[in-house]
């Protein structure tokens, strides 16, 4: 009597499993695909080796002077010598502890906000921190005679510090104006609506650089000149004007996404306009628009590089300065690449964060 013998299964063909299987399926599945793969490999071959060579393998990290440094590849010791300039601009070196301390305070505030999760006083604490923070930042960075902190004029601010200051002030200051404009645009009052739409469309149609020119050249003409307009302040006004209308459009998107029933329910509950907006509509609308607000902040961060055109010394301006530095002539490329890497890392982290936020707030099923 013959018994049924189970045959052992043949192993899957080599073209389906393991590394070769992956290669066959993803790179060489058809003639066309193979051709594309080779084009891609050739492109990588063209770009990657020379780039790595310039940036790392042939690059010079240690030379003390420009003449000793290699000409064929990057000279990173230039960045090493100038790193403080890139970070703080002309800020006096004995006062570097102030921006550093501010950074530590910022991180500490962030940790406090995190630790309070679920605590019943959470909102009150965060709000009060939020209101204290600008004053701390101002007194630390600018200084104050009465508090005995040496004043550092804003024309000495620069580098990454300036970029962060401009971007942060821009986003925070533009927020309330943006909400007001967005509500104005939704309003049933014709004149309010017209004014909001006019402001938004007018500023959206103009490049930021023109707005910065306007803020730096035209704005002082509209005030009696006893008020001394700080250059940084003018840039901040321009940036805030510009950012407000973009924030307004983002928040309008959020307002439109709140279901109509919520508006009607709030009305039916007898809330007045301020209560309706502050307690019912805006909390929902803002939550929906948070990922887009982060996106808008990323755009603002990129745009702050433009302040160099009206004469502020952000990181890029300092990289450009290299052309006039007699000790390190011809090291402009290194400066630009360094700035690009720093900004890229910051922006990349922010955009990844915005993606996680989008996922976290996505309550659809």
């Amino acid at each position, binding site marked *: 009597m013959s018994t049924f013998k189970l045959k052992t299964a043949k192993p899957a063909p080599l073209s389906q499993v393991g590394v070769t299987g992956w290669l066959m399926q993803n790179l060489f599945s058809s003639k066309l695909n193979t051709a594309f*793969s080779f084009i891609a490999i050739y492109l990588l071959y063209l770009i990657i080796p020379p780039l790595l060579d310039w940036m790392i393998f042939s690059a010079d990290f240690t030379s003390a002077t420009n003449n000793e440094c290699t000409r064929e590849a990057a000279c990173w010791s230039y960045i090493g010598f100038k790193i403080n300039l890139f970070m703080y601009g002309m800020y006096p070196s004995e006062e570097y502890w102030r921006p550093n301390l501010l950074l530590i305070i910022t991180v500490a505030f962030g940790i406090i906000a995190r630790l309070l999760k679920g605590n019943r006083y959470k909102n009150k604490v965060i709000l009060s921190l939020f209101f204290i923070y600008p004053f701390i930042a101002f007194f630390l960075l600018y200084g104050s005679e009465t508090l005995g902190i040496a004043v550092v004029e804003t024309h000495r601010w620069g580098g990454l510090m300036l970029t962060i200051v401009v971007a942060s002030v821009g986003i925070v200051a533009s927020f309330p104006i943006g909400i007001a404009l967005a509500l104005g645009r939704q309003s049933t009052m014709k004149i309010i609506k017209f004014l909001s739409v006019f402001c938004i469309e007018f500023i959206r149609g103009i490049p930021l650089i023109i707005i910065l020119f306007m803020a730096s050249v035209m704005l002082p*003409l509209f005030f009696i000149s006893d008020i001394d307009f700080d250059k940084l302040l003018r840039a901040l006004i321009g940036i805030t004007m510009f950012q407000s209308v973009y924030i307004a459009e983002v928040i309008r998107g959020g307002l439109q996404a709140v279901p109509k029933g919520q508006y009607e329910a709030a009305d039916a509950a007898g809330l007045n306009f301020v209560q309706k907006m502050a307690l019912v509509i805006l909390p929902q609308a803002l939550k929906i628009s948070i990922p887009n607000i982060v996106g808008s902040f990323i755009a603002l961060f990129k745009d702050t590089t433009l302040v160099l055109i009206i004469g502020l010394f952000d990181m890029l301006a300092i990289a450009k300065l290299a052309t006039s530095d007699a000790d390190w002539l011809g090291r402009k490329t290194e400066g630009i690449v360094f700035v690009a890497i720093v900004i890229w890392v910051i922006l990349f982290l922010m955009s990844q964060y915005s993606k996680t936020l989008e996922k976290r707030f996505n309550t659809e099923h």
Partner: protein
Amino acid sequence: MFDFLNNNKVRFILFQLIVIAIVLYIGYNAINNLGFNIERLGIRSGFDFLDTRAGFGISEYFIDYTIDSSNLQVFYVGLINTLVVSVIGIILASILGLIIGIARLSKNYLISRLANAYIELFRNIPILLQILFWYNLALSVLPSPRNSMALFDAIFLNLRGIYLPKPIAEDGFIWVFVALIVGIVAMFINKRRFAKKRDETGIRTNTIGYSLLFVIALPSVVYFAIGAPMHFDYPSLQGFNFKGGIAFSPEFLALVLALSIYAATYIAEAIRSGIESVDQGQTEAALAMGLSYTQTLKLVLLPQAFRVAIPPIINQYLNLTKNSSLAAAIGYADLVGVFAGTVLNQVGQAIEVLLMTMAVYLTISLIISLILNIVNHRMRIIGLNP
């Protein structure tokens, strides 16, 4: 007594009146201060400065310009330079964006990763930095005019820019142009005729052959029939520099390159999200109905993908045009560089100069929004109950 304040209509009117009063008050004060400041600083006002002599040289212009030209002429030179950069940038960005967007969706792992890396890299670097980078690179790697890189002895690339042969029209070339317009009109009439036939009989006709005949063959025949009335002016090395042809400066090259590389990342993302937005079921349904793959693509997939992709792409065109104003940073002679820059510094009439510049950008943005509205209207989903 104050019961009427509880009436919503009354409140609205009161509130709006208060806002108008505030706006008027601020406006009145600003204009008052402006008048005071202008008098105190001795700034002239009015648009007389447009007729005065500019007195500075511009390296790149497409219309006649000399040092003795008026400031108005500077305005036109800058405007045309801005438009040229924007149009060429838009064309390049569209091509590049289309390629990258499709590559991003490729099933080939390497290709899609490469496209993704391109997008992540260039989207997260500020455009101004990219402009400066390419300009710096162009100045450091391009050869001197004597060692130019040449293509067919007609196109030359060197430190002074790129030199292309310049087509020069002779007498009678206008007829080729007329033929082209006639051809385009004929193409549309022809298309409409076949569309009507399709509606009546259900028979589709491929009109691309007719279209090529009208738009390309007709002008070519006219061109050769009247004896090829056009020749090329080739650039040639004379002394230390090239003469003749059309020249584009390194500033122009860096600007166009940076603008199109940057805008292409956004266009690629728009195209990708457009294609991804079309449900898989649409393809399956179309194939199940017996449409061929090309028909599926042309009649089902692309129209739906475009509806999602086109609005952000047109927005990117507007952004590119606005970003071209950063030319000022590398000294390309665009509207902001020569007019809002040099002329403003010379005459000091900030209000007039900036108002004119703003008007130009607002007009461009209005035109683009208008186009966007028309496109949106044409592509809207036509429901059963309009």
